[in-house]
Structure formats: structure tokens, C-alpha cells
């Protein structure tokens, strides 16, 4: 008997099994199979998809993770197609006319129904015909517990035919790996030996990847990331410029445009609108204080994982430290971490940024996993 939480239907998970000897298959026939790699992010989600047995990527999309439910009383014609639910950019564009709901918070599902609506929308993006079998590898935060995973499965029930949940740091390493260079003498394969620092919205995850699937000991999740920096920056701005009226959204924009770590850079003058009037404010120290806190939080986790690597592997490992996620866009974060390691005596450390494609690496890794997963590794969700 499946034991279900009191207020929702049970989801039974069965491993995908080979057909019975009689050849009877319980699932309805689908016209084709589409494989999906899915990074379900708190702010933005990335979905890549392609037909099974094909290496082409037919769909590649980054979508703001937000759903807009059209408010009552909106006049016909205001919303394109008189849609009742909008997603992603459409929802944000029409924010005055919709109730915006973010299905995720801190990387995990916060609103089940909205998450399901969002996944249904992404399914239509991947398979407009609605006739394909959809198999999705979904990245989950390194610290996602059983409840968080079950929430994803509940939301995926009836949307995807098969799912596989894999921690994001490993998927990032898989996605970052240049498959064409694997085996070349000078190529440091991130799946074989690397440290990934994924600075997201709710958490910063540090993961040691050394040729086997990372264990609990190989992953450290720090509850300080983009949102926490925004909070600190907001507090600092309110302290330095009282009654500034700047929203959290505006503060985040300031961080994304001017955020940096390291010694204070002054003057850093920025024009903002306060109370309808333009003001020029100096942000150098304010931003430095907020962003440098991130380095203080991440660095101990980084050195902890370095000490877990074997002496045979650690010298190469130190050459392959990769920063990804939105936090990788903070100016100087690679140089500051590298300098700290060098100053502390680590042998020739090299910290790299994942680059402009950082938003896609988890989804790329997820699609690679989808293409490689064996039949019996996929999970069938039964409601």
C-alpha cells in the first residue's frame, strides 16, 4: 500500500521495466520519444530537447520561472488570445493584469499547482503535437531532500512520461564537459577531476567530481547566494540612503549590473530614480560589502572539499575549479578565489568561470544523461 501525505494523491514510482514475455505493454503507444534536459531554476529555467536516437537539439529555451494567472475582469483583447494563464516572459510583460506566482523558492517547489502548470507549458514547448512520449531528466539542488524530490514528481505526474532526478552540480560538470576533447592529453575532464561552485539564487553548492557519482561528503550546500546578496545590498542601501524607495527587483538589477568581489572599487556612481527623480548614488563600498560576504561563505566549503581529494588527484583538481550559476557573473570572483587559495599555500590553483553559457550547463548535462540513461533507470510516475 502506498502511504500518501494526507492531502494529496499518492504518486507511485516504478522503475521502467522491460516488456513482459507476452509483449503486453500497459502504456499507450506514442508517436515518438522526445528526451528533455531540464534545469528547473528559481528565477529562470532552461529546457533542451531532442528526439531519441538523434543528437540534434530541437528545442533550447530559457524561460523565467513564473506563471501569471489573469485577474478577473480583464477586458477581452487586453491579453493576447484572451489567455487565462501566461508563462515566462509573457507573464512578466503583462504583470499589471495577472497575478504572478513563482512556483519555486530556493530551488525547490513552493507551489505545487503552479509548478504543474509551468511544466505543462514547457511540455507544449517541447512537444506542440502532444503526441510524443516525453522523458525528462530534471536537475535538483544538491541539498534536495525526499520531500523536495517528491514535490517535483507530483508536479510532473501526468506531464512527463518518464523522469530521472539528478543533482545539479553533477549535471553542470557533465554539461560543461567538452565531449570532443575527452581523452586528449591536455584536457582536464571536469567529470574526472574538478570542483564545481554553483552560485544560484537560494544556495551556493560546491561539489567535488572525481570520476564517480558524488556522495554526500562530496557536496556542500551553503544557504547564501543571490537572494542573500540582494538582501544585504538592500539593507546597506537603506542604511546609506534612507527612504530610497528602491525595490528588491531594482536592487537585484543593480547587483547584476555592477556586482563585484574583491577590494572596494570607488567611485562606482550609478543613476537611480527615487521618488520619480534621478539621483546619482555611490555604490562602491556598499556593493563590495554585500558581495564579498559570498566569498567568505564559499571559501571554507571550497577548502573542505579540497582536503577530501586524494593526494594523487589534488594538484590536477586545483587546476580545474569552475564557478557557474548566476553568481559566476560577479566581476572578479574567479580571481579573488584563486588568490585566496594561492595566498593560503595551495599549489598553483586555477579558478575558471563557466562563461556566458552558464545558464545552459545543467540542462545540457541533463540532456546528455537523458540520452545515455538505460531503460531501467527511468522512473514511471503512476498516479
Amino acid at each position, binding site marked *: 500500500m502506498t502511504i500518501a501525505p494526507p492531502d494529496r494523491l499518492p504518486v507511485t514510482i516504478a522503475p521502467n521495466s522491460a516488456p513482459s514475455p507476452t509483449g503486453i505493454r500497459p502504456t499507450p503507444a506514442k508517436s515518438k520519444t522526445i528526451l528533455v534536459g531540464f534545469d528547473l531554476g528559481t528565477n529562470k529555467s532552461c529546457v533542451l530537447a531532442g528526439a531519441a536516437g538523434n543528437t540534434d537539439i530541437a528545442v533550447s529555451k530559457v524561460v523565467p520561472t513564473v506563471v501569471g494567472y489573469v485577474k478577473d475582469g480583464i477586458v477581452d483583447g487586453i491579453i493576447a488570445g484572451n489567455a487565462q494563464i501566461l508563462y515566462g516572459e509573457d507573464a512578466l510583460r503583462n504583470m499589471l493584469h495577472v497575478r504572478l506566482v513563482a512556483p519555486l523558492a530556493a530551488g525547490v517547489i513552493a507551489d505545487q499547482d503552479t509548478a504543474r502548470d509551468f511544466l505543462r507549458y514547457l511540455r507544449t514547448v517541447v512537444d506542440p503535437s502532444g503526441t510524443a512520449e516525453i522523458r525528462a531528466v530534471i536537475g535538483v539542488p544538491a*541539498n534536495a531532500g525526499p520531500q523536495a524530490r517528491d514535490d517535483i514528481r507530483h508536479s510532473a505526474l501526468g506531464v512527463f512520461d518518464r523522469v530521472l532526478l539528478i543533482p545539479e552540480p553533477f549535471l553542470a560538470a557533465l554539461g560543461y564537459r567538452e565531449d570532443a576533447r575527452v581523452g586528449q592529453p591536455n584536457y582536464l575532464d571536469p567529470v574526472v577531476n574538478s570542483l564545481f561552485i554553483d552560485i544560484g539564487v537560494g544556495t551556493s553548492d560546491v561539489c567535488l567530481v572525481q570520476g564517480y557519482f558524488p556522495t554526500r561528503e562530496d557536496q556542500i550546500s551553503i544557504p547564501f547566494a543571490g537572494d542573500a546578496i540582494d538582501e544585504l545590498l538592500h539593507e546597506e542601501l537603506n542604511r546609506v540612503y534612507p527612504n530610497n524607495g528602491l525595490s528588491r527587483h531594482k536592487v537585484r538589477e543593480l547587483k547584476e549590473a555592477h556586482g563585484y568581489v574583491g577590494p572596494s572599487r570607488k567611485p562606482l556612481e550609478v543613476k537611480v530614480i527615487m521618488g520619480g527623480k534621478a539621483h546619482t548614488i555611490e555604490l562602491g563600498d556598499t556593493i563590495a560589502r554585500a558581495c564579498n560576504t559570498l566569498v567568505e561563505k564559499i571559501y571554507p566549503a571550497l577548502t573542505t572539499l579540497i582536503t577530501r581529494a586524494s593526494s594523487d588527484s589534488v594538484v590536477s583538481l586545483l587546476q580545474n575549479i569552475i564557478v557557474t550559476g548566476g553568481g559566476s557573473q560577479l566581476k572578479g570572483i574567479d580571481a579573488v578565489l584563486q588568490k585566496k587559495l594561492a595566498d593560503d599555500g595551495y599549489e598553483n590553483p586555477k579558478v575558471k568561470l563557466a562563461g556566458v553559457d552558464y545558464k545552459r550547463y545543467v540542462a545540457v548535462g541533463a540532456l546528455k544523461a537523458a540520452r545515455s540513461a538505460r531503460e531501467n533507470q527511468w522512473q514511471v510516475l*503512476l498516479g
Partner: protein
Amino acid sequence: MIAALRTPADTEASLAQRLESIFAAETERVATAVVIAELLAPMLRPMSFSSAAPLSPAHAATRIVASNAPFTHPGRSGAADIADFIDEMIAQENAIDGPHRRAS
């Protein structure tokens, strides 16, 4: 039983044919029942709601995770494909949550 099935009009050939079709229908019926049982068996087995699937361990403490070290990695010497990594993930999660949590 076979004698009971025989009708006055039956020849050996027609009786054999009818028996064959009865056996084929029963075989199909049993096979269908087996499939249904395979699907339903997990529901009949006591397991928690969050069972069955591979689950990564809960990092409930949001500070630096303490090491429990229940799983030792296999120390792969050669190249592995991605499916092998997924197998390791499933094995880790079974080691932590127990194999009874998987539907099978």
C-alpha cells in the same frame, strides 16, 4: 475435463482446435493478470510515500553538511559512461534509504 468438453458433433480435429483456442485464451488471460500484478504489487507492499525512486540524501541542515560517509565510491579505474554514473547514484540512494523503498 476434456471429455466433458466434447460434444456429439466433435471430431478429434475440431476438439483439438477448440482446446487449442481455449488454452490460448487462458494463456493470454493469465499473462494479462501477471502484468496487472506487476503494476499493482508495489502498491500492496508497505512503503513510504517518498519511496521507490532514487533520492539523494536530505541536506536538512543548511550549514556545511556533516559527513556520514555510509557509501564508499567504487574507485573506478577506467572510463565510465553516464549510465554507470546513474547506476552509482541509484546505488547510493538505495544504500541510504534502503532497497525496500524502491518499487520493483
